[in-house]
Structure formats: C-alpha cells, structure tokens
C-alpha cells in the first residue's frame, strides 16, 4: 500500500513516523516549503540568532532513509480523487541525503530508497493524508504586492523578513496574537522600533482574562514596544515600498515594515472546487476521515465536524497536529481510532514571561464558575485557578512566570479535585527549577 502525505509539518511527519512504526507500507511525504521537517515554532529563534535553521530540524537528515520515508520537494497542484492521483509542479524533485564524512566514519549510513531518477509529475496513492497546515490570514487593507508588507508563517516568510528588515528602523505590527508578539520580539532584538496595533482594548483579551491581559500588556511595554490598544489599521502607504500606515483614527505612523499577524487560516485554497468537502478547513469526522474514501486530513488544515467538549473546530496548535498524526496512523494501519485530545493545555512565551495553561480558563468567566487569581506584588508571576461554584471542582489553570507540572494539573482536572484540595497540594504541581523562589505560601494565603 502506498500512503502519500501532503505536508511535512508536525502533523504529516508524525503520521508518517507512526505509520512506519505500525506497518511496512510505502510512505511518501511531499512539501513545497523545505526539504526536511523543521520546527515552525522555532522560526523566531533563527531570526534572533539563538539558532540556525539546521537546529530547528528535530531529526537528522539520514533519519528518513533509515525509516524508509520518501521525501519529495514540490507542490501538489491538483488532486484527482477519482483516479487517486496527485499532480505535482514541474519543479518537484526527490530529496536525497548524501552522508557526511562523520556519518560515513561512524557507519550512520542507511540504504537510500529506490526511487525513479526522474519524478513523474503524477503520483498515485492508495491512501492520502492532507496535512497542509495554515496560511496567514489577510485582509484587503494590506497590499500584498507592496514591498515590506508581510506575514510570518513559512520558512520563506522568514527569508523575506531577513531581506525586508535590512536597514529598517521602524516597524508596525498589526494584530496582537501569539505570532504578533513573537514578531515584535524578533524585530526588537535587532534594534528595530516596533509599534503594535491591537484592535482590542487590552492585549489578547479575547483569550486572557483581564488581569493576565494587563500583566502581559505591561510587560510588552516594558520592553519598549509601543503597544497601541483599541487601534486598527486603515491603510498602508508607500510607492516602491511601505513608508507609513494610517490608523482608523487618522494617525499616521512612519515605518518601513508592516507585519500582518491577524491570525492564520487553513491552507485549503488549492483543494477548492473538488469533491472534497471543505468549509473553513478540510472537514473531518472524529476519525479524521474526510467525506472521500481513503482520504484523511490532520493538523492545522482540519476543521472538526463535531469538536469534543472544551475543544474548538479548528485548533492551530503544535501538539494537536502531533496528536492527529498519532491517531490517523492507527486508523490507517491498525484499528480505526477516534481523535481524543483530552484535557486542553497550551503554552507560550511573551518576551520573558512564560505562560502555561491547563483546562479551561476563558477570558470571561461564566456565571457558574468561580475564579481565584494571585499575582506577585512586584514580580511578573501570576496564577489563576478556576473552579465550578457548585461542586468546587477545579476547571482550569493559568500560570505566568511559573512552571506547572502537566501530569499533575491534568490529573486534578480529570479527577475533579476541589479547589481546597488543590490549594493544599499546590507544591506537587510546581515545575520550577531547584532553588527558585517558591510562591505556594503566598498563593494559598491569597486564594
């Protein structure tokens, strides 16, 4: 059986790895972005000089030969679902690995896979996994063609940003989500003055409760970012390249770069007008099956027909891509398995403040839920715990500048432990390094 996967991101690659673990099927992964799987989440660190591109690759280049996963670099232009055939772009090529001297010396060499020398532009599959990820969301106000206006999603975007920020003094970032704040940090690290336009009245307050939102907003400002709340962009000005932007209030801000980070959306454009059912993303059932036989979809590009409780229909998160990959591999090789992402969790970093969340902590606390919040009087450390008013069972955690143990939080949430129990056992959930200041005493005193 030949399994073809479109997309070498976390979702597609996890599917490929698990299919290999479970079976001997032929596996081909196609991507237009890079030869090998890399960590999209680390793009910012490459720009900031913490890492090089090669450090973002979670597996060494010989790994694919060893696991007999065939790699094709190219674009899938069209899919003929009836004929089970993919049409590849003319520049498509097979990715081959030349062992390095060190690898030869240490016999870290594996037989390369027998693939035809010239790649046919048509590729047959028995089963197809669509894992095409996202594209930056865009709006009409942003002229795509104008030099210096760009989003941040792909490796190519990173290269473009490198080019676009040569000799740039001022930048404007539109949108204040997670990628927006990452982009602000990136530009700031190169000494570029950043103005951030955020539509909401408080930073990311559609996700974060008021206090946390204020804490992060303040931190971003402390780093010298000009954070403009309740501000929207009207137009971008400039002839050869961007020269300024104008806000809806009419203020003009001079800048040589505009970063558009108003979110991402499933990358499904090339699948429109086909029998595949598409809404905002590729629509799948709980088994990650699409409306067509032998066609599955995983990762960012997916829209769940019936999301589980506490989950959204589209979740563009690293680990959900991984979980879908793990799940679909079972369905294809072994036993039909439902996607069950369990208790929600996530993490991010806003400049220097680490953020972890477990369970459900909505921006607006529902009436049947109580919420307790502790914040250090001087440091940027905070913890919120939500619990059900009726039975006192905890429903969610938000931690800032403080590391929590995933296993413990998940267990408490699943077991519906009471807030009182959690208060008493809080030290068990601490995941901060040794010698770090412990806040449990303060926290329990306030909660």
């Amino acid at each position, binding site marked *: 059986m030949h399994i073809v996967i479109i997309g070498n991101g*976390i979702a597609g690659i996890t599917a490929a790895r698990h299919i290999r673990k479970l079976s001997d099927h032929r596996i081909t992964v196609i991507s237009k972005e890079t030869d090998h799987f890399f*960590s999209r*989440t*680390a793009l910012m*660190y490459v720009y*900031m*000089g*913490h*890492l*090089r591109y090669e*450090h*973002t*690759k*979670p597996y*060494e280049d010989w790994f694919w030969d060893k696991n007999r996963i065939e790699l094709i670099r190219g674009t899938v232009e069209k899919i003929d679902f009836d004929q089970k055939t993919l049409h590849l772009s003319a520049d498509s090529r097979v990715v081959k690995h030349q062992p*390095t001297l*060190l*690898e030869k*010396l*240490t016999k*870290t060499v594996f037989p390369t896979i027998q693939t035809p020398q010239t790649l046919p532009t048509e590729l047959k599959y028995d089963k197809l996994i669509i894992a095409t990820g996202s594209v930056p969301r865009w709006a009409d106000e942003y002229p795509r063609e104008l030099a210096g206006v760009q989003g941040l999603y792909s490796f190519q975007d990173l290269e473009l940003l490198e080019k676009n920020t040569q000799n740039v003094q001022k930048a404007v970032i539109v949108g204040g989500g997670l990628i927006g704040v990452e982009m602000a940090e990136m530009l700031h*690290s190169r000494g570029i003055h950043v103005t951030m336009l955020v539509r909401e009245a408080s930073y990311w307050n559609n996700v974060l409760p008021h206090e946390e939102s204020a804490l992060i907003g303040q931190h971003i400002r*402390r*780093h010298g970012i000009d954070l403009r709340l309740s501000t929207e962009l009207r137009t971008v000005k400039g002839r050869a390249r961007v020269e300024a932007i104008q806000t809806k209030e009419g203020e003009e801000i001079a800048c040589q770069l505009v970063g558009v980070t108003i979110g991402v959306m499933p990358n499904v454009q090339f699948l429109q007008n086909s029998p595949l059912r598409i809404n905002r993303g590729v629509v799948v059932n709980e088994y990650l099956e699409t409306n067509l036989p032998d066609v599955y979809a995983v990762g960012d590009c997916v829209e769940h027909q019936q999301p589980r409780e506490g989950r959204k229909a589209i979740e563009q998160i*690293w*680990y959900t891509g*991984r*979980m879908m990959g*793990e*799940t679909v591999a*079972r369905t294809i090789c072994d036993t039909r*398995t*439902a*996607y*069950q*992402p*369990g*208790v929600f*969790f996530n*993490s991010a*970093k806003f*400049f*220097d403040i*680490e953020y*972890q969340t477990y369970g459900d902590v909505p921006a607006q606390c529902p009436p049947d839920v109580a919420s307790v919040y502790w914040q250090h009087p001087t440091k940027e450390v905070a913890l919120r715990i939500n619990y059900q008013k009726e039975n006192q069972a905890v429903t969610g955690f938000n931690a800032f500048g403080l*590391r*929590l*143990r*995933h*296993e413990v939080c*998940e267990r408490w949430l699943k077991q519906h432990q009471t807030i009182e129990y959690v208060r008493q056992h809080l030290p068990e959930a601490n*995941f*901060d*390094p*040794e*010698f*770090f*200041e412990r806040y449990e005493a303060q926290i329990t005193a306030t909660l």
Partner: protein
Amino acid sequence: MNILSRFGILLFLLGFGLWLYTLTLNEFTLTESVVKTIIKPEHQATLGTKLTPMLNQTYARGWAFTADFDRILNNLNAEYRTAQQWDKVIYDEYSFAISKAAAVGPLKTQPWRWLFLTLGLAALGALIFFLPDLQRLSGISNNGVFQNPATNRGWIGWLVGTFLIGFYIFLYYYPQYLVNWTMLVDPVSKALNGGEASRWFLYGFLYTICVVVMGLRMLLKYRHSRYQQVRTLSVMFFQTAFAFLIPEVLVSLNMPYFDFKNIWPLDYDFFFDYNLNGLIQSGHLGIFMLVWGIVLFVLGVPVMTYFFGKRWYCSWVCGCGGLAETLGDPYRQLSNKSIASWKIERYLIHGVLVFAVVMTAMVLYSYFTGSSQVLFLDSYSVRSAYGFWIGGIFAGVVGTGFYPLMGNRVWCRFGCPLAAYLGYWQRAKSRFRITTNGGQCISCGNCSTYCEMGIDVRAYAQRGQDIVRSSCVGCGICSAVCPRGVLNLENLAEGSRVTVAPEVLRGNEI
C-alpha cells in the same frame, strides 16, 4: 554596543595587548653567579663551560636568549648521544629556570605595576564590558549568538582558538618562552607560598581569574535563575579556594601540594611514586590526603552521584567544569549533536578510561615490585605517554583550545575518564534525571542547541522520555533556555525515571 561596553572592550584589548607585549620586555644576561646557582655541580664542568660564549652577553629579547641556551644544551646532548655516552645526557629542565634567573628589567623591578597594566586592565575591561547587561530586563539572552563571529565559529572564534591552542602548547612544552609572564605573578606567588612563580602557578592564577571574571558574567547573564547563580558561585568558590589558594598555602606550610577536590583518574598522577611517597612522608596530614583521595573515588563518587547525579562534581565542583561553565559559556552552542558524534564520544571517553586504569595499574605494579617492566611494556613510558597525549594534548590543547570551535566541553565529553566513571553511576544507579513536562514540548531545539555535552535533549523531550544520559553534567541550561518550561532537573525516587518513551504523549487519549 553601548558606550560602556565599547570602553570595556577597549580596556580589555589594551590590557591583553600589553600582556602580549610584556613577552618582549626585560633584558637577559647570563652571569657567572646565575650559572653557579642554577646549574647543578655535576653539570658545571660540562654544560657550565659550554655556556661561556653566552656569558655577560646582553640579550634584548628573551626568546633569543632562550634559543641560544637551548641550542648549546641540545648540541651538547647530541655529542653525548653520538658518543653513546647515555649516562651523560642532561635531562634537567634548565631552560626555564636559567631564563628566569638571567632576566633583569621592569618586570622584575615593578611586577605589581605590570600585573595591573596587563591582566588587571584586561579583567577590569571585561567586567566593564559585561556591566551594561544590567540594563536589559532579566531573562534568557541569546540574541545574536549565531550572528556573532565570536560565538558562531567565525573569525573571532578562530582567532581566540588559535591563541588558546598556542598558549597551551607553550605552557606545556615550551614554558621557557613564558618566563616574563611568570614574573608578573611572582609577588603573588611569594605572598602565597613564599617562592617564585612556576609556570603552573601562572596557569593556576590565569585559570582562577578567568573563572572569577567569567563567573561574574554568568551571574549577570542568569540573574533570573537561582540554579545558575548558586552553581556558578560554587564553581568560583571551588576553583579559588580548593584548586588555587589551599594548595599554595599548604606548600608554604611545608606540606604537600594537594587539591582536595581533584579525583583520580582525572587526577592521573595521584598514584605516581613521587606523589605517594610525598604523601606518605608527610605525616598524618599526608596519610589523610591519601585516604581522602581513595575514599572520594571509591565512595564519594557513587554515593554523591546516587543522590544528586554527576552534576555534583562536573558542574558544581570540578575545575575543568568550572572553566567550561564560565569562560566556556559563550561557546556551549558549538557542540555537535549528531548521533555520529555520540558514537565517537563513547569510544573515545571509554578508551581514555581504560588507558588511565591500565596506566595506573602498571605504575602501581612498578611501585610495589620495583620493576618498571610490566609484560613487554615499560611502565614509565606508558605513564609519560599518558601525560603527553591525554594530560597535555587532549585535556589542555584540545580540551580548552577548541572551546570556540567545538564547544566548551570537548575534554569533559570526549576525554575525561572521571566523567566516564561518574557517568556510569549516573546511568546505572541514581535519583537524578531531567524530567520532561508531559506534552508541552514544541520541538524548537533550544535545549539541544545549548546543551554543551552535545545531548540531543529535544529527542527525549518531544517524546516524553526523561533525559537519563551518562554524559549529562546537569548544568541546567537546557531547562533555562526552554521557552515552554518543559525540562526540570530533579532528584526523585530512582525507579520513577521514565527511560522508555510512552507510546503516545500526554494528553492524547487514544
């Protein structure tokens, strides 16, 4: 770069430049009294007379003097060898002593002034260079690491590497060319142990300065991380007190030179005859030192490693580790993370361990039997081969010289036999592990990149497996740089280490 930093780097370069310049200072004159005091009576008639042409000639440059002296000595020895008069060949290391005794000039008359103008200015400049870091909000600061030629194996890295390699070669094999530098620290040496500075005193002094100055940099850089601060203070303390001051003071009290925290087989000459004899002849204290050294190895290592992991030594106490964690910190990202290099590492480090054990066994055999012949080998040549190849070339020239090219733990990772032994216990029986936090890893690669031991930490973290690796020195940097709070160094019940990756990661309920 801000103005203070610029000033600091200028000051550092000035001090460093003057330090190099001091190698050209002083005049060198061989007088009869120098020949009388330095050359042993039995060599006065032979070498002493051969030196006559040099007498009372003034050399403006130390290296010209030393070269002339070396030539005379080598010619004389060559004559003996051709005449097959083996017993007459002179092995004494006269060159360093005679060069030093023949020197007259500013370094001899005003050593304090020159010490301040050279190493003093350099240290001060470095500190001023680091100071503006305080303006930054505290947190991880790796911006530009791979864009800076000093830290990305660029031209500055190569320059620094070349200097370090050169320095070690001269220090170990041609110390006679560094006499001027030892004169700078003569007053310090006299104050501590009463004698003039040897090359090893110079080395210890420089080493300690580097650990302290770069340790202060660490304290600034990681001011948000108490683990890093406590650990750095610890290596600064052990280097200054245990490796540098205490042994010198012991010497001034007429007791054996002894570093209480150095452990065989890193301390490879611990069982050499001169060391054993020296200790045994030094009364109770000497015997205590002997027993202490053996107990550290036999009991100290397994017990401490069981409770805390190998880190108790490698990144808290050890001198090599101390230098790597301070002077070497800017280079930790240059270690190779590939499986191929891991394979090489395992062969090399265990090879050195076997070499050290065999060499020591032979030396002890000779010590007790009085016969230097062990099977078909001469224990003295095995011992000097170890000293040259492992003690000198590997630990020094390669181990430190390659910091800016291969990362700051080249020796600890590929060569140190004690690290191999500690690592064995860490893997086999220890409460230590680096816990990975469920499913939070985003595979960004910061941890692997900044692991000085070349461990692919991410490979474990992204599949929910604890990091239990014999090479991990527990520096804690992987945990510090992880942007998602995934890694934590912990000592917990031995059996709770997750050494097999779970089928699926936490959170997925299939």
